[in-house]
């Protein structure tokens, strides 16, 4: 039931994904909520064809021209669909490759409206900066551990497969292949951001209260907000540490308990919010890095994405691994 629902949701999300890409109007002044906050409310999407990091072949190229952007978008959309072409191959890797295709992906049909070639804007090479020696060591250990123990138990799997956290919810709120939808509600003294994946709600107090004690750790961290002019600034600490990367399967990002995220939301027009997030984790990265995306307004409500309730995948992954082990043991005899 849940899986069927998810499939329906996916289709709906795709149908409604025509994001309104509007050029930022610098003179545009947002309206205010009843308690005087610049109004960010509504349903938004950060779906984009632009990759997190600048591809190596675009080194040195920070922005596309209009023509280049159009060609890039066309190519990316074709890649989405190429993956859905049935080439007759039936190996496990082929089936996995075709598990998600153009009908599923909800990356929208455009790159970011700044025509940048990556979501990473600082450093200016568009790449996540090198890891510190300690960070590299942790990263390598996590990856070799994952290779050696891909599915000893559920904890070996990425947070997203466990239905605990998807990168969409963040922070930082990073677009995923699908369901990049958010709703923002501003009640007196709070900004609340709900990510459709996986009904993850961040209730952000604006009253300057201190963060939770540092021994308290949460997957989405602990967020505190304040306004700087028309920009909402959210400061998040107290993150849980998990060596399966809290950035999920789509990204190579890696963080530990020292992660500190600073997000900036600026309404730039009736249909757009510019979103910037700076990732600072001094034990992992040699310097902070910043991403920028556009949140585009949608007219559709967001829906329930009940992930854990229909997580048949986890049963399949673990029992498949056990079966393979049994087969291998029988062969060895």
């Amino acid at each position, binding site marked *: *039931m849940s899986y*069927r*629902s998810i499939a*329906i*949701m996916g289709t*709906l999300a795709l149908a409604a994904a025509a994001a309104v890409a509007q050029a930022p109007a610098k003179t545009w002044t947002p309206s205010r*909520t*009843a308690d005087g906050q610049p109004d960010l*409310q509504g349903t938004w999407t950060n779906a984009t064809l632009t990759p997190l990091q600048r591809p190596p072949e675009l080194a040195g190229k920070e922005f596309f021209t209009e023509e280049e952007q159009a060609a890039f978008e066309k190519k990316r959309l074709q890649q989405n669909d190429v993956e859905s072409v049935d080439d007759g191959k039936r190996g496990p890797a082929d089936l996995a490759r075709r598990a998600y295709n153009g009908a599923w992906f909800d990356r929208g049909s455009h790159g970011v409206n700044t025509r940048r070639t990556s979501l990473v804007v600082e450093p200016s090479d568009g790449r996540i900066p090198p890891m510190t020696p300690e960070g590299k060591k942790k990263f390598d250990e996590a990856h070799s551990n994952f290779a050696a*123990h891909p*599915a*000893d*138990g*559920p*904890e070996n799997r990425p947070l997203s497969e*466990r*239905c*605990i*956290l998807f990168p969409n919810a963040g922070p930082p709120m990073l677009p995923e292949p699908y369901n990049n939808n958010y*709703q923002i*509600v*501003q*009640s*007196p003294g*709070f900004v*609340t951001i*709900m990510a459709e994946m*996986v*009904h*993850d*709600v961040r*209730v952000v*107090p604006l009253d300057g*209260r*201190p963060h*939770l004690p540092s021994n*308290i750790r*949460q*997957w*989405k961290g602990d967020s505190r907000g304040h306004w700087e002019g028309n920009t909402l600034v959210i400061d998040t600490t107290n993150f849980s540490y998990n060596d399966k990367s809290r950035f999920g399967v789509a990204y190579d990002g890696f963080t530990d308990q020292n992660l500190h995220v600073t997000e900036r939301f600026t309404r730039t027009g009736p249909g757009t919010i510019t979103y910037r997030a700076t990732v600072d984790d001094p034990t992992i990265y040699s310097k902070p890095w910043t991403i920028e995306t556009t949140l585009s307004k949608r007219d559709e*409500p*967001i*829906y*329930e994405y*009940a992930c*854990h*309730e229909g997580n048949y995948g*986890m*049963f399949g992954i*673990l*029992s498949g*691994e*056990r079966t393979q*082990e049994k087969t291998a043991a029988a062969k060895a005899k």
Partner: protein
Amino acid sequence: MPDGKPNLNGIWQTMNTANWDLQTHGPAMAPVVAMGAQAATPPGIGVVEGNEIPYLPAAAKIKEANYAKRLALDPETKCYLPGVPRATYMPYPFQILQSAQSLMIAYEYAGAARNINMGKPKEPPTDSWMGWSNGHWEGDTLVVDVIGLNDSTWFDRAGNFHSDSLHVIERYTPVSADTIQYQATIDDPKTFSRPWKIGMPLYRHLEKNLQLMEFKCVEMTEELLYGHLRKEPRKQQ
């Protein structure tokens, strides 16, 4: 609120034992012996009007079977979304986030959340765990019409259940600065012979700097759900 509507913003919680059993009940032993008094059922006065849940005969038998296997069958054991109205009286706080155009309820348990559509009523595209909520004001009362609920949630730990024909009408009426009277009318012709009602106050949390904590209980259920599929099963406590 500046728009003249009652302000329901705040962190709220019930103060009753409805999540153990909607009807008046005595204490009961914990379903896990090792849990002793910690997980015993606390006795409590029921929240059902007239204390009777009007099950159809076949449904009454299912309820009894549910009760007998309640630890294994209650969706709460697996950290599944609680549905409506159960989300309201789970023993966890929830926060109402109300602005001039939006109304959202965030629940601490399982990170459940609901958007109350305060605009033109809409039909849900499919059934879901938390259902589809269309809200409107009747004087000072927020009335929420909840449809599109699936058949997989329970009302409590005592096995009270429903089908996918469930239709819930909730009424949130502020009765003082720090209390809301909550009422839910439950209609499900496949399960009950007539609609019935539950009612209870919601109390405002007054603690300074209180916040909903992250309670992603999925992690607390992985051993229960997947433990038998581990490479090396954990030693049971």
